[in-house]
């Protein structure tokens, strides 16, 4: 599966996403614009998780913590009248990255199930802190006083502009991801996953690389959190709950981990399924559950491996 074919498939997918607003307008269904925008925001979060999960083998159940941090990094400045996206969004990435640095420094000393549990623990700690802080609404959460301002014609209040901004960020992320994966940095990370002992034997300080990619993933997820706050115009500490991390992880696995496009597909599949199934029946989780089991057992590469042009993981 050549990288040219993969690039072509990705280009087609991005073009399809770009066409959604036009289709929505043609069908007079503006709701789909909102739905796909939300899908793309979670796709960004899912891709950031895949970087450490699919490529690096680090199973973090605390990833949603950065969604929350990113969201609050937008809301709290806005509360004090600071609406500029150029301040809020880099702040979201910086704070999330910092949190990831602290969490990673402690957690990456462990591995396997221990790592899963300790990342879960950190997420829960942040969640409990969040619901206790009253000036920021506690678990009632807080309203976003106003969407982030990008300046000039880029008004996020316009649903179409907001949509294309998110699409642009997703596209940049995917392109940047492609380059990183195939650069030295990405090679080291993938080597960590396949045999860390051997890597250390040849003199590579794997811990530093793991921490670096952990921080990077956290920062990107923080950006997703900032976008989510803008999307919902409302945020609560529940954005940081470990079950959210579980949702994002399901998106990665469903879509195909260890790929860049997989999580995007997974986010779309998960959120669309949730939307459609829950309108059908109250017991939709009884359908989603076994579906998940079947994908894990029998469709190892996720949905991406079923797409023509998709398939084998990168390395």
């Amino acid at each position, binding site marked *: 599966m050549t990288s040219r074919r993969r690039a072509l498939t990705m280009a087609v997918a991005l073009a399809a996403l770009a066409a959604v607003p036009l289709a929505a307008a043609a069908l007079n269904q503006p*709701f789909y614009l909102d739905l796909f925008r939300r899908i793309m925001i979670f796709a960004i979060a899912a891709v950031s998780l895949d970087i450490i999960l699919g490529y690096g083998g680090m199973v973090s159940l605390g990833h949603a913590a950065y969604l929350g941090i990113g969201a609050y990094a937008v809301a709290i400045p806005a509360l004090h009248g600071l609406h500029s996206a150029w301040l809020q969004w880099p702040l979201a990435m910086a704070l999330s990255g910092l949190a990831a640095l602290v969490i990673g420094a402690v957690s990456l000393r462990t591995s396997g199930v221990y790592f899963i549990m300790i990342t879960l623990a950190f997420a829960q700690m942040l969640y409990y802190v969040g*619901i206790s802080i*009253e000036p920021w609404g506690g678990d*009632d959460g807080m309203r976003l006083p106003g969407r982030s301002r990008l300046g000039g014609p880029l008004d996020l209040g316009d649903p179409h502009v907001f949509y294309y901004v998110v699409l642009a960020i997703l596209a940049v992320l995917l392109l940047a991801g492609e380059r990183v994966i195939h650069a030295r940095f990405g090679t080291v990370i993938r080597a960590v996953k396949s045999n860390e002992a051997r890597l250390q034997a040849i003199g590579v300080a794997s811990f530093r690389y793991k921490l670096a990619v952990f921080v990077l993933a956290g920062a990107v997820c923080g950006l997703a959190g900032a976008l989510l706050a803008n999307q919902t115009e409302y945020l*609560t500490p*529940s954005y940081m709950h470990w079950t959210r991390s579980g949702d994002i992880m399901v998106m990665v696995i469903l879509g195909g981990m260890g790929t860049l496009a997989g999580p995007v597909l997974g986010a779309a599949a998960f959120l669309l399924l949730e939307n459609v199934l829950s309108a059908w029946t109250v017991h939709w989780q009884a359908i989603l559950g076994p579906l998940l089991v079947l994908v894990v057992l029998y469709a190892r590469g996720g949905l991406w491996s079923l797409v023509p042009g998709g398939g084998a993981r990168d390395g």
Partner: protein
Amino acid sequence: MRTLKGALILVLVAGLLAAPARAAETLKIGFITSLSGPAGIIGKHMKDSVELALDHLGRKVGGLETEVIYGDDQRKPDVGKQLADEMLKKHRVHFVSGVIWSNVMLAVAPTVTGAGTLMVGTNAGPHELAGKMCHELYFTTSWQNDQTPEAMGKYMQDQGLTDVYAMAPNYAAGKDMISGFKRYFKGKIVGEVYTKLGQQDYQAEITQLRAANPKVVFVFYPGDMGIQFLKQYAQAGLRGQIPLYSVYTVDEISIPAVGEAALGNFETRYWSPDLKNEANAKYVGDFKKKFGYTPTFYGAQSYDGIMLIDSAVRAVKGDLSNKKGMVAAMRKADFKSTRGKFAYNHNHHPIQNFYLLRSVKGAGGEIEMQIQKPVFENHKDAYHQDCPMKW
């Protein structure tokens, strides 16, 4: 052939021209609640009540064919908002109703009112929407969150009870309940304890409680936390010893799960299944007949929500574009509510009575809530002064 074709076209055109004498619009109501997960039981109560209201109205609200679209918010504010968006933009509903949780409501209500659509909340009562964020298009058929514990505080203050030990979960609603209680209760509080949200085992807290030697215990433990606390309080032998007063803890959902452990407990509420008025007798009686279980206040509020919408649509004679007319009609609260007659305050929250309830063994031997006496008559919420609306 040509004449046949011509005739066909004529018939088609005639049909198209005749079509605009169209049937009246279908009224669409979006109802957002939690249908899956552990809180799904509350959603079921609300949905069943909405269905009963539709039955009572002959499936026509305000005289119009009605379609209710249910959405499951999974207790998540961003899912609630997505549902609101879907109902507004895809289904083009004329009303949005429901919502159990305050944090979901704070995400949904501004979305709905911001789009110029009427919202009738049927449970959550966050103080922001009663105060600063009140809106012409937002009404509620339930209460403002603090009103219920205020009633309890007043009752205990009037009774001269003292040495109170207060407990609630450590989250926004828990803190609101205790502060609402303290707004009217000025006596001595020997302990104020906040426990972890979702905590299952209260043995440690109960041990501390006994050591503090209170005369009365006041708690707020909704849902499964309440069931656990009530069971453990009784098992520790405290049920007969120290009277237990609560809000949103002992209700028709928790009583079947705890049985005798709930006997003798006091609550305050604006409604009870045994509240005597025509609309309530019909609601409770038909509900039990159709669904086989006793309804709760979640259901009564949802039933009232549909009836309120019905009164509004009737008042404008089905002209759903006349929003001002519907708002004016709703402000009159001119419908038969399950709580009896009530009025709306200028912030679109009810001015209503609150009663002291007790769980006792009813005539059939079952445990049920019964009204003991009124505590507040025509009680207004504490945040209405912050609402700038005037009419």
